[in-house]
């Protein structure tokens, strides 16, 4: 197995704050790797350390099998980064910005022109080549930011929360674009605190919290890890204590929450769970409505491991 990035026992402190606590990960070549965690969990710090933008206290970082350092230009030439905040020059046009950053990697003029054009097309900024960044809307600016990060066709690309404060349309475009880059051969590291996005595009996901890696695996694997396999919610008015106890006895039920009339039942497995519940209610001639079955989300994974919600 070839790894694009390997991080071993990384420790990073900001004064007293322990931002990364013996953090490890291994990203395979060719995959879209998701780094999921709430704000402040250490995603950006991890990326900055991997890129040698930040000194760290302990640990080991290898990129494409080689030790990373600020002057490892042979490694750097294969890396592209799209940072959380837009980083472009206001005095330069869209085209010039992309050309400038691409030119920090590609010296050959003809090749560069091709690459820049590809990047412009890739993010759909063909009509804005001569625009200055100040004239672009937030979504378009994000796309320019992406183009500047990937124009040199890197083999390993980091996206640090590229969809924060982006309208749904641009957001979908960005996600599709990332998948396209991946299909074209790039290894992607994608950070986000939105579980839906990570679920949607990532091959493997690492969930982190407070600088620690708390779970890693594919979407399905992560959901297998937890007890919660299905959650059914419905409305049933005036249930008695006895009713609730009986429901608890139904096969695979492991948690029952009731807040008249809202009933939430969690299952640790089984099939046709809805049928079992509905049969029980009809047997007791209880009136119910709004039955809803929910498969677990990454939020449930996070909740079960950390005891708190992913969303802040």
């Amino acid at each position: 197995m070839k790894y694009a990035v390997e991080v071993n026992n990384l420790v990073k402190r900001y004064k007293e704050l322990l931002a990364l606590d013996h953090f490890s990960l291994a990203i395979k070549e060719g995959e879209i790797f998701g780094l999921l965690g709430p704000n402040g969990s250490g995603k950006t710090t991890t990326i900055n350390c991997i890129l040698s933008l930040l000194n760290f206290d302990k640990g080991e970082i290898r990129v494409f099998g080689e030790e990373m350092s600020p002057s490892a230009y042979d490694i750097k030439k294969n890396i592209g980064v799209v940072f959380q905040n837009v980083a472009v020059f206001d005095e330069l046009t869209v085209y010039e910005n992309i050309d400038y950053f691409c030119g920090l990697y590609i010296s050959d003029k003809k090749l560069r022109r091709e690459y820049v054009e590809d990047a412009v097309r890739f993010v759909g900024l063909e009509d804005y080549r001569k625009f200055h960044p100040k004239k672009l809307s937030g979504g378009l600016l994000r796309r320019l930011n992406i183009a500047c990060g990937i124009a040199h066709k890197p083999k390993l690309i980091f996206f640090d929360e590229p969809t924060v404060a982006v309208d749904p349309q641009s957001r979908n475009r960005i996600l599709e674009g990332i998948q396209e880059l991946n299909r074209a051969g790039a290894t992607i590291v994608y950070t986000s605190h939105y579980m839906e996005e990570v679920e949607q595009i990532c091959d493997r996901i690492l969930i982190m919290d407070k600088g620690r890696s708390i779970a890693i695996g594919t979407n399905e694997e992560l959901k297998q890890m937890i007890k919660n396999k299905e959650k059914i919610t419905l409305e049933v008015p005036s249930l008695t204590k006895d009713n609730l106890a009986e429901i608890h006895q139904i096969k695979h039920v492991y948690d029952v929450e009731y807040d008249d009339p809202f009933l939430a039942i969690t299952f640790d497995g089984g099939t046709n769970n809805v049928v079992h519940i509905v049969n029980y209610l009809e047997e007791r001639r209880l009136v119910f409505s709004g039955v809803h079955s929910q498969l677990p989300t990454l939020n449930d994974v996070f909740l079960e491991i950390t005891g708190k919600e992913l969303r802040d």
Partner: protein
Amino acid sequence: MFIHNFKYAFKQMIRNKAAIIWTLIFPLALGSIMFLAFGNIYDSDHVFHTLNVAVVRDEENIYFEYLLDELSTGDDGSETLLNVEFLDRENAEKGTVNGDYDAVIYEGREITLGVTKSDIQQEIVRSIVEQYNKTVSMIGDVAKSNPAGIPAVISTLSDSVRGYASQETTTDGNTDMYTNYFYAIIAMSCLFGAYAACDFSEKLALAASELGKRRSIARCSKGLQAVSSFFAMWIVQLAVEIITIFYLKAIGVNLGDKILHMIPVVAAGAAVGIALGTLIGSVPVLSQGQKAGITTSVSLGLCVMADLCAEGIKDMVEHTVPILNRINPAVLISDSFYALNVFDTYERYFRNLILLTVIAVVFLAVSYIILRRDRGASI
């Protein structure tokens, strides 16, 4: 890579409106305004000749007449400053309009200035009148307590007036204070290059900006990016200074006749301005606003110390802490111009040039160290 960086740094420079306004438009506007305000000093004949003054004696003022007497008596046969004639109001004014007299002074308890022929003469006569009025209260005090001291006060007064007149009329050295103002403006323009440079180095400094991060992960070393940006800024700044010099000359400011010798000075001056900005911009702990504030106060402060706003500060420093004048780039720039036009040797000119270069190198070296240590604990 160098050319690529240079090209884009250059583009950014010439499109940076704020920087262009501060380094080019503002000094040119200030220079034009000052030139207009100082009037036609440069048009008039600098060679001094005795001024014919008509005095209208509304009321006898012995102190003032004593002063007039002093000023119309030449020292050991040299030309006198004034040639005084007492006339009635009508003849005095008519004579001045005709050109027989250079100015009219009304003598009374208060001394006032009447019609004058041209600005330079008005300057001299007015200064006499003002100096007198200023000294009157002092004379009054002396007169009460010590009547014998009056001649001493009067002669001090007449000395200072003579001094003023002779400074006013130096022809070969352009050492007049007006030219000094324009020198200070050019120095200011050089140091204002710090604005653009501060912005630039901030966009290169990893800890200071997202752009710095993006450039730090590039395949191209930051040293190379920094050096190429520096050259681009320096060339633009140098062009700005050359435009400024030729503009000032074109509108009629007398900068002396060693214009070409001024170019190495502004080249070194521009380098100092840019190095200063680079240094301020690279300090990681400061916010963008703080950096802009520091850049403004430092560059303006240095210019004020070089007599940009009022004359005398530079001299005062020279007499108290001369070392400050040796390390103040604004003083070094204006002093180089001064030295060019006053001295026949180039000793002081070269000394200043070397000092300017040393200052630029020191600033750049410190910024380099800061930028290298950038990969610090705080992004």
